[in-house]
Each structure stands twice: as C-alpha cells, then as structure tokens.
C-alpha cells in the first residue's frame, strides 16, 4: 500500500530526475515562459555562453512587461527608457533560437500568467517556471508553477531542468459561503492579513475547502497569484472537474486520445484524503467583509467597514514601529474610517485581477454611473483575448462611458516600469503589491477587488461595493 500523498508529493515525485544533495533535487521542467524584462537577460546570457535552448518547443516567450498599453501601440513602444531595446533583444533572441513566440500584436498576447492558462500552455501537474514571482497564478489550474531568477531561467533554457529543494506542505481551507461583494481577492487579502507576509516561507500552499471547490478557475488563479504575498513561492488548487472543463478545447490543451489519457492522469493528482500536511490553516468566509489594504505590505489588509489601526495600541515596539512607518508613507491617520478616504486614481489590471470575470464584476458596478471628477480610472485587460471577449459583450463601452480608459493588455501599471502617471497619487488597485514606490514614486496603493476598485472610482474615495450593487 502506497503512503498517502499530497498533490505536491505526487507532482514533485513525478518530476525528480535525480536526487542531487541534501534535499535538493534535479527536476524536469515542462514549461518555461520568458518575457522581455528578465527573460531578455537569460537569453542574452545563454547566447554569450555559446549555448542553445535544450527544448525550444517547451519554452514560450511572451511580450508583456515593458510593452506600452496605449491603444495603437507599436512594436517597441514602452514607457521605460530601456524598454524598446529590451523588447527588440527579446524578439531577436527568441527568433534566433526558434522559440515559440507571442509578440505584442499576436491575438494570444497578454500577461504571461494569464496567457499560460488561457491558451492551455500549462496543464495540471506540470512544472512551469517564469522569471516573475506571480507565476504561482498558474497553480489555479493545478500546475506546480513558481517564479525564478534570470540565472535559473538560463539554466532551464540550457537544460530544461532546475535544481530545487522540495518545500513543506501547507493547506489552507476556505470554508463557508462568501457574501455579496466578497471575492477571491478579499479571501486572500484576509488570509494574508491574518497570517502575515512571511508566513509562507519554505512552504507550498494548497488551497482547499468548500469555498475553493465552488470557486471559478479564474478566482482560484487570483488566490494562487497572491501566495507569494505571504512568501509562499508555490500556490495551487489540485485539478478537479471544473479544472478539466476549463482546459478542454484550449488551443494548446492535449487533443483526442492524448486528452483522454491526460485527464485520466490528472484525476490521480489530488491530495489523498488521509495525506498529511506540515501545517494546516482555515478561514471561514461566511462573515468576511470586502478587504482593502491600509499600509505598505499586503499583510496590511482590513475590512472596508473598519478604521485604520492605531500603532499606539499594538502589542510590541516592533509592530508599532512598522505600522507607524507604513502610515507615514501612506499618509493616513490612525482611526480614520478607510471607506471615505479620497483617491486620485483607480486601476483595474494585472495577473491578479484582470480576467473576464474580474472585468464583469467591475463593469456591473460602474454600469450607468460615472467616474468621480478628477479621478484617473484605467482598465488594462489581462490579455488580448480577455479584451476581445469583453468588447464582444460590450464591457468596454460600459467602462468608457463611465470615464475609464480602455487600454491594450500588458503588465502596465502593476509596477511603474517607467510610467510616472501615478507618482505621488493615492491609487486603489486590483494589483497584488502595495509596496513603497511599487506603482510609482511616492504612490500610495490600496489593494482591493475589482468591484471595490470600481465602486471607489465612482465614489471618488475608497468605497464599499455593496453600497452600489
């Protein structure tokens, strides 16, 4: 009788080529995704070393990080001064190495982690790596996906393998039925707020529980996207029927007999009922409020109905100091009700929350309403197919008529990447990081769900989406 195994155990075991030393294994990598910000460095280093990619067909390059989101953009247009050179270099090296390539004007283009699932490039039980910490997003379809550095990417390019220590297993159960106006983003922010930004070091997190089982695949991707925000490099929801439905017929999903064989295999990957996890956590979503961050770490999450915390009332000197530093940066006074804080900008975009269901949730709030005067409201779809699908159902018109900019897909203003338009502004954002300077110099970012961002854009201040629904 085989010992009960977790999804992580099963997928890891399947990819170990050789045990190398200690707890480090040499793992097979099924898919490598490169982009022009860091992939360009890996490609250049590989070329300079006189090497070639080991398995080009299992690699794909996608233009997403530096390319402009301006409608009508051209092929090297970027807000970053070095963007044109990096985009060109990535394009040239990818072509020279005959790597599958999704360029800025390809109908499949978009943010790498959105494209990976949308096109079926990723599949359940695959190992997928990319030079981007939000690669864990792809775990939403049951992939073991994680972010790597450029040197590791060069190693994967040259060998299609990686040296990796097996993480410990964490399971987080979300149970209960979330109320109206509460989404995957609120669930993950609430979790990070509770466990803290460093809770996941050394772990891979499996999301489970009734609220995850009943969640759309896109919601699961949002959960997995933010695993890294509590320092968990890997996050995933093992494949189930909903996963298989989602992947069926995707452009790069297996077909016919291959599909049947693959599905049969994927169904074996779920964690066994009696599998043991190193740590288990659970969170009941029944009474969860929409969440918004008040500080400079995703762990600074709070209910939108609550007041900004007071450092003076915190238990220890360290917490007080950290909270005070965050408040100084974000320029909020302790005790301020977070709902009602005026905003300068509202941003809908990123690998966290710019898929079709996110745009629908935001459009439902702004439909027939106007963005508050003086608020810059920007919508950047997660991929070109998302953009086209949204246009086909008229969402672009709803956003435009409300006063949102409707832009081309890319990573955009999730990080400033040379764009200064949010410098020194207070922004409510569907992205994943509210770090100091993340969206621009002195930019004060408040993380929230698409519905909350939309409601805030209309109200001109941080606003509870349930009041507009």
């Amino acid at each position, binding site marked *: 009788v085989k010992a009960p195994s977790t999804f992580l155990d099963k997928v890891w075991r*399947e990819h170990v*080529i*050789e045990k*190398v*030393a200690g*707890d*480090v294994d*040499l793992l*097979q990598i*099924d898919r490598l995704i490169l982009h022009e910000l*860091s992939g360009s*460095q890996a490609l250049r*280093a590989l070329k300079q070393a006189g090497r070639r990619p080991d398995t080009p*067909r299992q690699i794909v390059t996608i233009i997403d990080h530096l390319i402009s989101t301006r409608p009508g953009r051209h092929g090297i247009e970027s807000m*970053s*001064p070095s963007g044109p*050179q990096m985009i060109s*270099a990535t394009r040239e090296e990818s072509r020279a190495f005959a790597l*599958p390539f*999704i360029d800025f004007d390809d109908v*499949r283009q978009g943010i790498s982690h959105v494209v990976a699932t949308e*096109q079926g*490039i990723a599949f359940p039980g*695959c190992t997928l790596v990319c*030079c981007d*910490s939000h690669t864990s997003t792809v775990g939403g379809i049951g992939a073991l996906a*994680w*972010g*790597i*550095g*450029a*040197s*590791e990417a060069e*190693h994967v390019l*040259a*060998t299609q*393998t990686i*040296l990796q220590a097996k993480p410990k297993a964490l399971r987080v159960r979300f149970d209960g039925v979330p109320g109206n106006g509460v989404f995957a983003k609120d669930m993950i922010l609430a979790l990070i707020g509770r466990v803290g*930004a*460093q809770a996941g*070091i*050394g772990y891979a997190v499996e999301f489970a529980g009734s609220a995850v089982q009943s969640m759309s695949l896109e919601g699961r991707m949002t959960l997995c996207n933010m695993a890294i925000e509590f*320092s968990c*490099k890997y996050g995933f929801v093992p494949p189930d029927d909903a996963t298989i439905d989602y992947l069926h017929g995707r*452009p*790069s999903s*297996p077909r016919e007999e*291959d599909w049947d*064989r*693959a599905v049969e*295999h994927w169904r074996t990957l779920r964690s066994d009922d009696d599998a043991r996890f190193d740590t288990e956590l659970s969170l009941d979503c029944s009474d969860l409020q929409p969440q918004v961050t008040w500080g400079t770490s995703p*762990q600074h999450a709070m209910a939108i109905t609550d007041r900004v915390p007071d450092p003076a009332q915190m238990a220890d000197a360290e917490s007080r100091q950290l909270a005070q530093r965050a408040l100084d940066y974000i320029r909020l006074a302790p005790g301020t009700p977070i709902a009602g804080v005026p905003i300068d900008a509202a941003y809908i975009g990123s690998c966290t929350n710019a898929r079709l269901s996110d745009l629908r949730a935001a459009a439902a709030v702004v439909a027939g309403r106007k963005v508050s005067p003086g608020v810059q409201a920007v919508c950047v779809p997660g991929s070109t197919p998302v953009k086209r699908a949204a246009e086909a159902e008229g969402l672009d018109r709803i956003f435009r008529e409300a006063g949102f900019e409707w832009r081309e897909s890319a990573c955009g203003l999730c*990080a400033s*990447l*040379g764009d200064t338009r949010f410098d020194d502004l207070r922004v409510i954002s569907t992205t994943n*990081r509210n*770090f*100091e*300077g993340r969206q621009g*110099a002195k930019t004060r970012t408040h993380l929230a769900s698409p519905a909350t961002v939309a409601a805030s854009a209309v109200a001109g201040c941080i606003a509870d989406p349930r009041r507009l629904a």
Partner: protein
Amino acid sequence: MEAVTSVQGVAAPLLRINVDTDQMIPTTFLGGTDAKGYGQHLFHGWRFLPDGSDNPDFILNQAPYDHAKVLLADRNFGCGSSRERAVKALREFGFQALIAPSFGEIFYSNCWRNGIVPAMLPIGDVRRIAAAVEASRGQHEVRVDLEKLSIESGTDRFAFEAPAIFRSMLLQGVDEIELTLSRRSSIDSYRTADRMKRPWAYAQGTQG
C-alpha cells in the same frame, strides 16, 4: 561564476522586517539586458532624497557602512519580486554576505548564483551582532566563512546551514549549467520513461 570562500569586513545593520526587492531596486531601474549597472540604484528610494542627493540618514550613506561587505537584515529579507537585479545591485555595492533570520525564497536562490552568501541566524543572534557593530560605530568587523559554515563577530561564533549543492557551487565557482549537463545520461533516461507516461508534457507548448 565568482567563487566565495569567506567574507570579512564592515557589517551594516538594516533591521527592517519584510524588506522587498522593489526597495532594493525599483522597477524603474531594471532597464537593460546588461549584467551590470545596478549597484548605483541600490535602495534608491531610501538612499537618495527627492533632489537626487544622498540621504544622510540612510545607513549605507554613512561611513564606514558605505563600504560594508556584510548586511545584517531582518526576517523575510528580499521578499516579493523575483528580480535578480536586486541581488546584482547588492553585490555591485559591495555586499558578499547577508545575515538574516529568513529570506524571500527566490531572492535566496538568486544570492547563491551571484556571489553572495545568504546566511540564516535567529533574530536574537542577528541583533547581538548588530549591537556589537553599533557599539563600535561600525569598526567591529564580521566574518562569514562559507567553508566552515561559521560566522565570527568578536568572540562570538555562530554556525549556519547552507544547501550542500549551492555551497559547493559558490565555494568552487562552479558553472551550474555545466554541472547539470554532466548528468545528461540520467536526464535522458528519465525523459525516455516519462515521455511514455506523460506524452502531452513533451508536446509543443503553444499552438495556434
């Protein structure tokens, strides 16, 4: 790759929790496909005032910490973005060893591949070293020995752990890719068997 056996020098205490790689090098300075040119932007938002001049309050602008080789850091140092240029910026500035209770994991992997020893010690020990450094106004040097897996701070000795493979790679300056390519036959036999089991994994990754 650059080899490192031991590092001895000025140690700069920067005991802040959850320092993310965006702080080490903001995205604005990630430009270029070059391997160098990032040290000048290290901790840009903290190190420079809005007019571009040095912020005198920031520790790395103060002698002798402006030529520190060892950084004393707090929990979850290097969390967030995978940007390897954060590590390159630290290395270019002069850091060859970091001592912290824990590191962001992608950052930790990147350190080993860029000539930086990331050593983990409990926070109490890090604070004890920092106190000795501060009491001496930075004159108290700290030694991180990767060969002996030990940290020396005055008469204090602390042992740390390192993944064996990454430690030996850094000690010898081994090229990681060469090392893996030497396992070619084991990779090939794995793939022959795995391809029978998971043929879809070996198909073209992108269609259409």
